[in-house]
């Protein structure tokens, strides 16, 4: 598949340059605040606290990778033993009522599927009617 193929909707709508400038300013200020806070926090942080934090994150990362790869291997093992799932469910298409329990009235599902325009309405007897326009 060609990942570089043109994108039908890839024409993101953007705002005017003034607004873009304002957004950029807000983002830049927030980044400045972010780094400023780090500059305030780091000198007051004990090395041991920082080490514990990094260690905790590393341990979680390593455990996640090990467990995940183990899980993947386990599932691949099942796939190799049992092969791909091949059983196709054959559920009959049996539409007699709609989602609210109202009877469906129509001229036959073949006619509905062949039609370009189908009108769905509800009548006073609490039935849903589908009428197909030919063609």
């Amino acid at each position, binding site marked *: 598949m060609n*990942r570089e193929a043109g994108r039908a909707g890839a024409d*993101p709508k953007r705002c005017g340059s003034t607004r873009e400038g304002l957004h950029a300013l807000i983002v830049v200020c927030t980044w400045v605040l972010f780094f400023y*806070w780090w500059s305030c*926090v780091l000198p007051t942080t004990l090395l041991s606290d920082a080490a514990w934090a990094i260690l905790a994150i590393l341990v979680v990362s390593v455990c996640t990778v090990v467990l995940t790869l183990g899980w993947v291997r386990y599932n691949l093992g099942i796939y190799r033993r049992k092969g*791909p799932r091949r059983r196709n*469910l054959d559920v009959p*298409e049996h539409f007699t009522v709609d989602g609210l329990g109202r009877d469906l009235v129509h001229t036959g599902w073949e006619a509905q599927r062949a039609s*370009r325009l189908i009108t769905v*309405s509800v009548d006073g007897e609490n039935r849903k009617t589908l009428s197909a326009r030919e063609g």
Partner: protein
Amino acid sequence: MDQVIAGMVFFQHTTLYWVMLTYFGFYPVFSAVVWVTTSIIYFFRKERMGEEEDATLYALPEPPPMVSVLIPAYCEEKGIEATLEAAMRIDYPRFEIVVVDDGSTDETVARVMPYVERGAVRLVRKTMNEGKAMALNDALPCLNGEIILALDADAVVDFGILRALVPHFSSARVAAVTGNPRVSNRRTLLSKIQLIEFTSVVGLLRRAQRVWGRIQTVSGVVVAFRKQALLDVGLFDPSMATEDIDMSWRLQKRFWDIRYEPKALVWMQVPETLRGLWRQRRRWAVGLGQVLRRHGGILFHQKNLRFWPVAYEAILSILWSACFVILTSLWILSYSMGIHPIGAYPIPNFWGMIIATTCIAQLTVGVVLDRHYDRSIRPYAAVAVLYPAIYWALMSTITFFFTPIGFFRRRPKITLWKTERK
């Protein structure tokens, strides 16, 4: 007032407070680490393939199955034509386009009719508005496809979408494949934050969940279903606020497989105002609450073991939002009364900065992984810094207040459309 102060001070010395504080501090860091590492594993296993392997994996079956591109619409006069034009450009040998109009009161039908007259599109026109789920259900018997690609009516698909999605259905137990929604409207800062969110939270989470084996929800804006699977679980439930989350859980409870396909691109519109975003996320929170109530039993049944990581993760996220709201409210109240709360600081401390930094790192990884599919996202990576600063508070508040409403409130008969369009 003295009693309130005394109560606050007392609470801050309880075990519950310390448990909440610890959870509040550790969960976002560790969940970010888990999502990032797991999604990177997915990336290397599934997305970094040579051309030959890629061609084999995405080869269409012979004969290619018939696909119905189903577009439910309610008052979509502004965007429906662009959606239809893009859908007509899909590169696939056998498909039909069906719009189901859910009793629109604007010019939606008038915009669609020219396409119907020239035979490019079929129209199921409902005379009454009954919500998206009912619209999908009413259209289903009229469709010719064995695979149904459900799209939002303001979504513009990439022409390669069906070639990316359909090959997954060669596996007999695949019920649905969810695509990769990209944000097309980037006029406001809020929409730019959502751009990062969909790339870095939704994209990463889907990849990670695929590795675990179950997906919390498909993206309602772009998802392909196997028709037989929908029939197997009884179609969409009109009483659920989020029929996509409900359908995802129902399918997977019946041991159907749901996959994620990052190459299946669709360009969607997101709310650009706070009001619009609030309403959308409120509905999602209520929907998740309804789903947890309806399907919560899977948390205790061993046969649904593979669902546990996804289900428990959803609950842990909700609990974290609760901690966020309760603790932040407590701290603001404490400071306003001149009391320095225990464990909190007006300016983030070291661990607070670790939380923010891991969040930004997670968002950046999401941008890096998704940049192959959306090169226009790179300039927006810098917006990630606003996510922990602004977005967390907003989303946590919505989750905290509205998920319980969905859980405890009696479900309405049907849920109607409430989408803001501009």
